Every structure is written in structure tokens, then in C-alpha cells.
């Protein structure tokens, strides 16, 4: 995924777990966040909740990208403020980038 984004000219920073992800969001103020849910340490929902609670990062759009896909999970994610919830196995990298583009515009 990183490769594809980089090859299309986007700047990408990546974090391997929730806590460092949160720090990264705060420090680098990305234009959009792609968030997985199953993470080592705190899970994606918590990252989302905390990012939205912090006034400095609350306005950064977040797209959840996860292989969890139960209706409850999707509703929870959207309620917590995610702009979209995409099940990884159902979208190609290009389709995801198209969704990203739509949000960035």
C-alpha cells in the first residue's frame, strides 16, 4: 500500500502501533489518516477516539481500513468520527486511493 501511494506522489508516514500512530498524527498533521483496527497495544477504535477528542487533531479525516467488518464495528467506527470504513479484502489499492482522493478534494 505504501509503495503504491509513494509511486503516485503522496508523502507517507507509517506507524506500527496505536500509541506511536497517535503521536505521529499529532506531530506530522497528515491530510488524511488510514487506520487499521487490530493493532498491537491500543486498538484502532481507541486511536480514533483519542485523535478526535484532541482539538489539534480532531479535524483530520480518518479512513478505517480493516478486515473486521461486522455491522457493529462499522457503525462504531463511523460514530466515533471516521469518514469511511473500508474492509481491506473488499477493495483494491487503487479503489482505496480513489476514496482517499475523494476525501482530499
Amino acid at each position: 500500500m505504501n509503495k503504491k501511494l509513494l509511486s503516485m506522489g503522496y508523502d507517507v508516514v507509517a506507524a506500527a502501533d496505536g500509541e506511536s500512530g497517535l503521536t505521529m498524527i499529532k506531530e506530522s498533521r497528515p491530510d488524511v489518516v488510514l487506520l487499521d483496527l487490530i493493532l498491537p497495544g491500543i486498538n484502532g477504535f481507541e486511536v480514533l477516539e483519542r485523535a478526535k477528542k484532541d482539538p489539534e487533531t480532531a479535524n483530520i479525516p480518518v479512513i478505517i481500513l480493516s478486515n473486521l467488518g461486522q455491522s457493529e464495528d462499522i457503525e462504531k467506527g463511523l460514530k466515533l468520527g471516521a469518514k469511511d470504513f473500508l474492509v481491506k479484502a473488499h477493495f483494491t489499492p487503487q479503489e482505496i486511493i480513489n476514496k482517499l482522493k475523494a476525501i482530499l478534494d
Partner: protein
Amino acid sequence: MYEEKPNFKETKEEALRRVRVALLNILEDTDEARKEAVNERNKTMAIVENLTDGILLLNSRSEIEIISPPIIDFFRKDKEAVVGKNIIELLNGEEFKTLKEALIDDKNKKIKIVYRQEASVGKRLDLEVSTVFLKEEMKEKGILIIFHDVTRDKLVERMKSEFVSISAHQLRTPLSAIKWTLRMVLDGDTGKLNAEQKDLLEKTYTSNERMIGLINDLLDVSRIEEGRFLYKQEMGQLEDVIKAVVESSQELLKMKKISLIVDIPKEKTPKVNIDKEKIGLAVQNLLENAAKYTPEGGSVHISLEKLETEVVFKIKDTGVGIPDSQQERIFTKFFRGDNVIRIETEGSGLGLYITRNIIDAHRGKIWFESKEGKGATFYFSLPFPKH
């Protein structure tokens, strides 16, 4: 007068004797009745003492008269601390908040009419509560409250649901990795491919997609069997659902050069109470089947009709149809007709099973007409609420 005296004496004694006998009989009957009442009470108490559900018998002042042993466990209070007390006192405390809400109308200080409502006691118990109002000749004699312990059932339900959700996730993870990497190679992101390479990799990609689809189907089946299938129901317009599905199916139809005609009545059909996502799945399944089993150049015709109490969706194709001998099993799990397996080896056989369950869950009906070689027409109806 002298003749009367012996008669009077006799009558008086006889009368007294008769009264004595009558009184003795009455005493005997009363004693019998008393013994029988004690017997009945003993029988009842024996039953109460051995019940596995928690039972409270309240008198007309909402005071607790009889309890069954599980009450002591549920409420962690001794018999002495419970019997004679008002039920509201028993339900005091943070632990019992939901239980109190379920049972007691706080404003009027009355016990509610409850049937099998779930309420929890802190984090340790899940109970199913019912109330029975006892009346004798129109007067309220008391209230029976029944507490059924469903803690273990709920736990097993939660564990199973979690297991299915995590399994789906674990299965999807490697499959999505395969999907993405194959897609990138096929799209030329790693360099040009020759025709043979492209062909082989496309086949791998398709198989992978099939597995992803199968996981979704199995997840749906699992939820159907648990009875937790519909997620959220709201009033919605069937036309909107059909429009969305038709839009997303354009690729498939174009690929097979199948023409689609959609007949929507000018006047909007009444709104129906639906889980939009699931009805969308049902329509999608029917449309995909119509397209899959219709040879190139064929046609599919969708129409919507308002009847007196229901809206009927109809989809007709010019495909291979369903042979008579197989029609009975069309909606069963994993069933695929012999004539279609030959055309297309893909397909889980779960689509119609899931679709039928979706329609059933909406209290609708689903049926079809078909002759082998002459296409198939599928219908489903959904009731709309009367105004």
C-alpha cells in the same frame, strides 16, 4: 297440651341431637378442608423450594411473602433480610439499577407488566424477568416475579460471536494481502507482463476473490443460525435500494452483454421497514444470479408493483432456468443446480439461502417460476405498515 309436652321434649332433644351431629359434621369437614389446605401448601412449598428459577411472591402491598432459594444467590441476601420487606428495598443499589428499571414504574410506584425481559445485575448476572399478576375474582391478590438465569447462555453467545468475527478477520488478512499484491502486479505496477503470465495471475486473482466472497457468505450464515441476522431496520424506499444495486452491477451486465430493463411505477411504492444493507444484498444476489445464468446477449427485466398490503419485486431472466427435479432444493444451503455447475464452477450455493433468510426475517415471502431452458422469474414481497 299434655300431649304436646312429650312431643316438644322429644323434638327438643332430637333437635339438639341433630344440631350436635350437624356441628360434628361441620367440624369434621372443616378439619378435612384444613388438612387438605395444609397438604396443598406443603406441596406448593416443596415445589418452590426446589425451583431452579428465582421466584418472588408479593402481596398486594408489594411486600415479599415467599421466595425460592435462587433468590438468595441472585440478590446475595438471607431469607430473613428479604421476606416481609418491600420489593423496592430489595432492588436498592447500583447493581440492581437495570433490574429496577425493568420491573418498577417509579412514577406510580407500581410493578410493571413484564414478559421475559433481560436485565443484568452488575456484571455478574444476566437475568430474564417476567411478572404474573394473580387475581381472584377481579381483585389483585398478589404478584409473582420470576427471574430466569441466562448468564451462561449470554456468555456462550458472546464467545461464539467473537470467535466468528475474529476468524473472519484472520482469514481475510492473508487473502487481502494476496488480493493487493496480485492486483498491483496485474496492473503493471511491477513491470510489464506477458499474456500467459497475465492469464495465470488473473485466474489466481479470481479464485482469491471467490474465497473472500465465501467468507462473507459464511459469516452471514453464521449470523442467520444465531438468529442475529438483521442489524437495523428503518423505513425506506425499495426503489432506492434497487437503483443502488443496479448501478453497482453495471460491470457484470456489460461484460456479458446482458440488457437490463427496470420497470419502476410512476407513483412511489409505500415505504417499507427494512434493513437497507440486507435487502440490498438480497436484490444483488437475485440480479447476480440472473446475470450469471443467462447466456451472452440475454436480458433481465426488473419490476416493482404495489399490491394491497405488500410491495412485490420481480426479476425475470432469459437464462438456463431451473429443472423441475431441482426446484424443491433451490433455497437450501450449498445447493447448486446441476445445469449451472456445468456452466460455471464458481458459486458457493449460499446466495439464495441467505436471500431467503433475509426476506423471511423481514416477514416477506420469496418464490419463483421457472422451466429448464426457458429462464427463471424470482419474486419477493415485503409487507408495508397500514396507515
